[in-house]
């Protein structure tokens, strides 16, 4: 009786852990290989940081440097960061189908569009999506297409949007003083 109870508890814990991992995995987008874009781009950035690489990167962050300290705070609770960014020498050199395939994944249940920007003047399109589970955000996706740049960001894990907002002033991002304007 006792043995079966403990087995039941173990199964429950395993299934909960499995579902938590599955939830986090759901927030990871299947990013296309973008080989054609890479060939056309004058500059391309591809970042693939899974949980083990994030942990490794965290070990090499210097807490005395403000930039590193901010990064350490942001990545606490994250299980993956995936970025693909391409810069081109001419306007709109990238095929829209690649963007559409990623957008399609963001129409799946769980993803919510947080911001949609369509700038006719600058031709900048930015979409920010979050994946929400209960009252927790466990995924973020940004698709930014500018005339000469195309970027997809996918962050997986428990995201503190406040901490992301604190990116301002670090990593070369100008301080926007959002709080002062409230």
């Amino acid at each position: 009786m006792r043995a079966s109870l403990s087995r039941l508890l173990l199964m429950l814990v395993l299934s909960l852990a499995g579902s938590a991992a599955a939830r986090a995995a759901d927030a990871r987008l299947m990013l296309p290989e973008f080989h054609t874009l890479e060939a056309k781009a004058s500059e391309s950035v591809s970042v693939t940081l899974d949980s083990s690489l994030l942990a490794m990167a965290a070990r090499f962050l210097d807490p005395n440097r403000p930039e590193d300290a901010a990064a350490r705070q942001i990545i606490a609770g994250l299980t993956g960061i995936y970025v693909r960014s391409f810069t081109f020498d001419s306007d709109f050199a990238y095929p829209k189908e690649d963007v559409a395939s990623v957008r399609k994944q963001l129409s799946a249940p769980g993803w919510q569009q947080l911001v949609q920007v369509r700038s006719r003047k600058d031709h900048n399109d930015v979409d920010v999506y979050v994946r929400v589970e209960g009252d927790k955000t466990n995924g973020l996706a940004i698709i930014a297409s500018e005339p000469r740049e195309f970027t997809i960001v996918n962050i997986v894990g428990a995201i503190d949007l406040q901490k992301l907002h604190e990116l301002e002033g670090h990593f070369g991002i100008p301080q926007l003083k959002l709080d002062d304007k409230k």
Partner: protein
Amino acid sequence: MSDDLEKQLREALRHVDPPPGFAARVSARTQSEQRHRWLAARHRWVPATLAASVLLSLLVAYGWQLRHEREQGLAARQQLIEALRLTGEKLDLAYRGVQDASKPAVPPDTGDT
């Protein structure tokens, strides 16, 4: 009695010529022993050298692993900083887009002033 003893001693201690090749065999054996001793002395450091080599190899491998891990870690850190920089940049772009959209439209200049 004493004659017998003397006789026995004489018999026992009589001069006997060595068999043919005895001197050569003794000489060869002496040389062989000397050579063995020389080789033993010469190879006395072999186990110590082997042990030192193994230890040195382990230290080199450990050092290489540490260096490799450090390089990987620094590359991961660089990737992380780049990813956060791009994320911040695109969030900033979205924020500016929202700000621009929420700004009231500027009335066209009528040229009255």
